[in-house]
């Protein structure tokens, strides 16, 4: 059965088709990556004092679901202690976590950024150094937050809501029930 469409309906239909066509041509350009880090959804970094036990750091990271803590002396950044440090220096070793000090296992004097640096510069630093977390400090060298690769991916993905965010969680196929983790 044919449904009669009046002119207004036809115009609406045409307009929404056009919108879909246009939305298909989104791209991320260099200007988007020149935007400053302050535009990201930033949270205060978790700080521990020099001399804190590894046990306390691990507990903080586990409880707060974070990949790193920033190690400070007074208000100055002295190091970063990440999941990677845990894997490489602690896991499987005979270390008394309650006695071990974070200073001996952290990565000292890490590369830092300021909130006025660009998103692109954070990406480049991560790519060069293989980092997943970079501390952001103010002019006095006091840590403010941590840029994570996850936060950068979220920024990029927001440019492509049609292509990425509105996807079903899995490509449509059979046999993908009860999957988790990764």
């Amino acid at each position, binding site marked *: 059965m044919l449904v009669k469409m009046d002119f207004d309906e036809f115009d609406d239909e045409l307009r929404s088709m056009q919108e879909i066509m246009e939305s298909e041509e989104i*791209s991320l350009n260099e200007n988007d990556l020149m935007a400053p880090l302050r535009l990201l959804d930033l949270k205060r970094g978790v700080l521990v004092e020099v001399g804190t036990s590894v046990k306390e750091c691990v507990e903080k990271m586990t409880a707060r679901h974070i990949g790193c803590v920033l190690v400070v002396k007074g208000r100055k950044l002295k190091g970063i202690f990440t999941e990677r440090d845990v894997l*490489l220096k602690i896991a*499987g070793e005979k270390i008394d976590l309650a006695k071990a000090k974070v200073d001996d296992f952290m990565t000292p004097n890490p590369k830092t950024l300021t909130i006025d640096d660009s998103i692109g510069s954070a990406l480049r630093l991560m790519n060069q150094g293989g980092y997943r977390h970079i501390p952001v400090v103010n002019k006095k060298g006091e840590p403010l937050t941590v840029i994570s690769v996850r936060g950068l991916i979220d920024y990029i993905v927001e440019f492509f809501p049609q292509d990425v965010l509105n996807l079903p969680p899995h490509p449509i196929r059979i046999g993908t029930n009860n999957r988790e983790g990764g």
Partner: protein
Amino acid sequence: MDSTTLRSPMTILNPARPISVQHGTRLSEVLKVMKENRIGCVCVVDNRELVGILTERDVLNKVVGGNLDVQQVRVEEVMTPNPEYLFEDDQLAFALNRMSVGGFRHIPLINLQGHLTGVISVKDIVAHLIKNFKEIH
């Protein structure tokens, strides 16, 4: 990066060949593999079939946090079983979706036979962006 890239199969990023351990491997051996290869994630296979994944996060939360005896415990007791995976020719957009919405840093890739063929990670995405935006400073 544009819509066309996102609709391409993720093989365009040349995902890394997977580093895997067999089901039943002792944790001490798995940690050695992760350290030697400096990787944050190892896939666990039974023959060639993907059965689990062990990430740095699991090492932090369960191995170090749980103070496990790595000489005794086997990988399947700590790994995340039945991990999310994608097919190697699925669109790249699905990998980004799982990374952003799902919060995964690594996603195992399999072929039609169910064999593990690769792992796509957030690092592959970063490397791709950098390659295409050389003028970033």
